[in-house]
């Protein structure tokens, strides 16, 4: 240390109290800063569209977000999914611009243009630097007034939507949510999600009609945020949207079913390693003044990792990967829900504990320290959601759309901070009703039915919604396949992976056969998604029953998750991949130790197994499977459809075309002559194909 810094250090000592040691405990929160919710301005355009402006000149950015009261609630019930499809196609071409021109123009100024549809509202948003505001609103107006909804774009969007539905059915959390909404809301539109049938029924005419009738200015909002004055924003909007006129037809939501005594809907998912539990009831309308107290109650019950549900079900009992509760707030009546994803054997214990905690928040006064820390979190975290003018505008838009009152945002933190224990308990009693609740459990009925029956009466359905009886829950026996490993092509194959015909990656598979076993390995790489997946395993040569199977998956360049299952007679044990912990998260590993009543095949080796079977037009094979990437029993049926010629990069081949139906449906092409070799495979759910290269 030199002389000058010694002097400086002495000076510093003089200004800092000598007692100010480094604390050994995390410092306590200081007082919350008062939040002045940013002011906003309003105007109405000549066509009736309301304009809201959050003016902020700190940065030369402006964003436009148009919200129109039209959404899934306006769809004909036979065409659920129509509003979302209309939004998806809106930016795919107008009378004067191709889809490519629209994206090039907005990208050329470094901006964005997006359309979307929810249950209640249709939105169209654009963010640009202020000097491109004219272009942004011009493009928005063009797609709004002149979209052409090209037929080929509709077919692409339909395929994406169907693939999404198929994927959803394999995800127990999504299955649970679908049944839960249906139980809560019945025929009310919030209870009606799109299905394969309704998506198939959507026509181009219906899309055009939906846009023509519902995308109208009256009753809608144009929310503008950023560096623009009210006069300039209004002038721009009048110029581009002045010829737009009319009002969307009024909508009727219908009444959800009346509450009834709590019972359980068990959605039977054979072989499921986990159960997804949802408990809930209809709760509040948007303007309900109990919202604040109910929000604090929810924070304590299940609103985070320090809340009771998480702490008790996960930290204390170790039953679950996570358990939470929430209220939502749509335009019509919202719901309360508590969720958990638990290991199969503890399903009934977890459900009983969740119900206990739900009752407790209604009946037991929360300690003051708990209340204060919940309120502190809620008031403290609110500003992180309004850091940018666009985020502010998003909050204002919610306030206006839901009619929450002009002072809602300004006084939100103050109202949360004012909640008292009696108010909290009163709000919990009014909004959380365990005795007239809907309970949905998705899991293996053969294991969990008896335990659930002790809690409440149980109705049983399969994943498709067909009613089942308790007798249907026992697994059925299966016949053995007539396999012969001598029919298989062995060695190393290299395949291309294409998406809509464009090469996106590669798959390498290798098969070897010895006297006792068939060994295989497959590696799939899709660089643009940072995806690297693979599986490897050993089958008994005589029967093709699995001995061991390993599945590995890495996404987005992240760490790989790998699970290995061992098959020992009817017993399967090891680890398998389950559903991801959240969006974008890697799949979670599940411990598996189960005994089945039937012999299974390896779900990773469906196509390879087919190459060991005697094939002829019209033959079909049905076999139950289980695998390390998909730890539920899935039954597949393969049918030889025809003999044809197919050309792939490796050459032209004489092949059988085989349709494979089941959870991950596909079409495979296998050389007609033995040894049978897989030369092509197409997934039914997505425009993805695999083609033999060498």
């Amino acid at each position, binding site marked *: 240390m030199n002389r000058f810094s010694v002097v400086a250090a002495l000076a510093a000592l003089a200004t800092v109290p000598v007692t100010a040691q480094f604390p050994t405990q995390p410092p306590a*929160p200081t007082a919350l800063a008062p939040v002045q919710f940013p002011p906003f301005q309003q105007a109405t355009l000549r066509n009736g569209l309301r304009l809201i402006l959050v003016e902020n000149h700190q940065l030369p950015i402006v964003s436009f977000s148009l919200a129109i009261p039209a959404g899934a609630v306006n769809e004909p019930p036979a065409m659920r999914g129509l509003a979302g499809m209309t939004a998806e196609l809106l930016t795919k071409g107008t009378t004067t611009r191709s889809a490519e021109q629209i994206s090039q123009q907005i990208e050329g100024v470094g901006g964005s243009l997006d359309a979307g549809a929810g249950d209640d509202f249709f939105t169209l948003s654009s963010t640009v630097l202020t000097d491109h505001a004219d272009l942004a609103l011009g493009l928005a107006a063009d797609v709004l007034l002149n979209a052409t909804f090209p037929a080929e774009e509709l077919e692409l969007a339909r395929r994406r939507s169907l693939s999404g539905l198929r994927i959803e059915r394999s995800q127990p959390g999504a299955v649970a949510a679908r049944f839960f909404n249906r139980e809560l809301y019945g025929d009310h539109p919030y209870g009606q999600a799109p299905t394969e049938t309704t998506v198939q029924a959507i026509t181009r005419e219906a899309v055009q009609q939906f846009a023509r009738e519902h995308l109208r200015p009256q009753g809608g909002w144009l929310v503008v945020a950023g560096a623009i004055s009210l006069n300039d924003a209004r002038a721009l909007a009048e110029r581009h949207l002045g010829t737009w006129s009319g009002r969307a037809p009024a909508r009727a939501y219908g009444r959800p079913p009346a509450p009834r005594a709590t019972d359980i809907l068990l959605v039977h998912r054979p072989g499921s390693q986990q159960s997804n539990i949802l408990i809930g009831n209809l709760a509040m309308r948007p303007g309900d003044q109990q919202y604040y107290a109910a929000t604090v109650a929810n924070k304590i019950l299940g609103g985070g990792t320090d809340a009771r549900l998480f702490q008790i079900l996960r930290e204390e009992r170790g039953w679950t990967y996570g358990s939470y509760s929430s209220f939502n707030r749509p335009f019509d009546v919202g719901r309360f829900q508590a969720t958990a994803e638990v290991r199969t054997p503890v399903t009934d214990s977890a459900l009983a504990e969740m119900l206990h905690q739900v009752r407790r928040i209604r009946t037991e006064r929360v300690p003051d320290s708990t209340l204060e820390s919940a309120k502190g979190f809620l008031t403290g975290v609110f*500003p992180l959601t309004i850091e940018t003018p666009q985020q502010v505008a998003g909050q204002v838009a919610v306030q206006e759309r839901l009619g929450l009152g002009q002072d809602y945002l300004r006084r939100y933190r103050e109202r949360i901070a004012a909640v008292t224990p009696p108010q909290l308990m009163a709000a919990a009693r009014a909004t959380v009703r365990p005795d007239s609740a809907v309970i949905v459990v998705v899991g293996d009925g053969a294991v969990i039915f008896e335990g659930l029956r002790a809690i409440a009466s149980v109705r049983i359905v399969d994943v498709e919604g067909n009613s089942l009886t308790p007798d249907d829950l026992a697994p059925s026996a299966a016949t053995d396949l007539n396999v012969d490993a001598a029919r298989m092509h062995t060695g190393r194959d290299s395949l291309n992976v294409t998406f809509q015909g464009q090469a996106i990656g590669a798959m390498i598979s290798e098969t070897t056969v010895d006297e006792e076993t068939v060994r295989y390995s497959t590696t799939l790489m899709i660089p643009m998604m940072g995806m690297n997946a693979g599986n490897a395993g050993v089958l008994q040569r005589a029967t093709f029953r699995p001995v061991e199977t390993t599945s590995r998956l890495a996404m987005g360049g992240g760490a790989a998750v790998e699970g290995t299952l061992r098959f020992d007679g009817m017993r399967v044990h090891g680890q398998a991949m389950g559903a991801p912990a959240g969006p974008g998260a890697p799949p979670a590993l599940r411990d598996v130790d189960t005994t089945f009543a039937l012999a299974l095949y390896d779900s990773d080796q469906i196509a390879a197994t087919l190459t060991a079977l005697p094939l002829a037009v019209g033959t079909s094979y049905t076999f139950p499977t289980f695998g390390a990437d998909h730890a539920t029993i899935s039954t597949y049926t393969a049918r030889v459809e025809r003999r044809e010629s197919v050309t792939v990069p490796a050459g032209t081949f004489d092949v059988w075309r085989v349709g494979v139906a089941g959870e991950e449906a596909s079409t495979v092409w296998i050389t007609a002559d033995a040894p049978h070799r897989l030369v092509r495979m197409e997934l039914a759910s997505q425009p993805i194909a695999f083609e033999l290269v060498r």
Partner: protein
Amino acid sequence: MSRLMLAALSVSVSLAAQQPVPYEYFPLDNGLRVFLIEDHDTPVVTVNVWYNVGSRNERPGRSGFAHLFEHMMFQGSANADKGAHMQLIERAGGNMNGSTNTDRTNYYQTLPSNRLNLGLWLEADRMRSLAITPENFENQRETVKEERRLRIDNQPYARAFVDGLAMQYDSVTCYPYSHTVIGSMDDLNATTTPDVQAFFDLYYAPNNATLVVVGDFQPAEARRLIQQYFGDIPQGAEPPPVDCRQQLNQGAQRIVWPDAMANLPAVLSGFLIPGHDNADTPALSLLSTILGGGESSRLNQALVRDQQLAVQAGVFTDSRRGPGQFVVLAVANQGVTTDTLEAALMAEVARIGEEGVTEEELERAKNAFRSTDVFGRQTSMNIAERIQHYAHDHADPSEINTDADRYLSVTLDDIHRVAQRYLVPNNSLLLIVTPARQAEVQP
């Protein structure tokens, strides 16, 4: 409003001076550099620490150390157990992370402003008392090895991109850039716990760090907390200077790179570019947008759409304190040979050297630059990262308020000149990636 008035409106907007970022700077006696940027719009605060250490500071035999160390920083310290950092931030309603590159290592958290003290306390606790134990170290070494296997060894093209491009640097004249950030597994294996402690003492001392606080705070209170939490952390020794004497234009190199993970051939060409503080950096940056940025870029239009020779084509630039790289790359379409692809890719590069670019292309690239520049100032986190960049990579942090002008004043001649100067065979490393079976792959 008439068209003319609208035109006038947009002109006045684009000429309006960018709001400068007003910052307050002070060093502590132990050498910690502190920047405070007040913004009271919302009660949110970001606490952001950069350590002036990256893989460029590593010595031969100790590659991969800086990145391994970043992992160690989440393994606990004297007053915050392993995992506590993440948990305390999450429960306060905030978010956090860290990352390592060739030139620096960063750590950050964004919090409600009444938890500024928590963010500062956690950063100070690990700066003063990181838990460097053999168990933590062994655990993280294995994690890093796994990361290398997954992110590099098992990904098509990744080894060429990471290991191959590093070969453009001479390991004698510039060891700092001639090895990768993730480093060699042999080096990681040879590392001992005392090595880790020595690295911490040298590079994680306050005099090698910069603390930035952005958001809603009272400067006097922030200064008091910073002084209390960081003020008595002992100053460390001066880290040795980084020795990179890499020259540009060292002759054309060409490497054929068999890759068992790749199914389609690819061509990558790396061109050395001068350090970030060079006057040519803005023109090179805009050129990379014109050549390879997005759907409307030259490479995408020519190779992917028109000639259909490639499934993917683009440009990646890595601007560093020492010589960086401008990498053009393309992945071949099915049935296209590497010779054909290489010729087409290099023809596009050469065309810019011969003819330059159009006024419209330059304008679009400047538009993209401006929006990225402006959109990147919207949150306290973005602003913190930006002031750190200027504090580390520029001669004077005040350039945060003037640097954009250099980009917006780039001319067609500038683009033409930098293309002719740097995008030439004599200054390039060409990597031809060919699909291969495992046995053919180089070790």
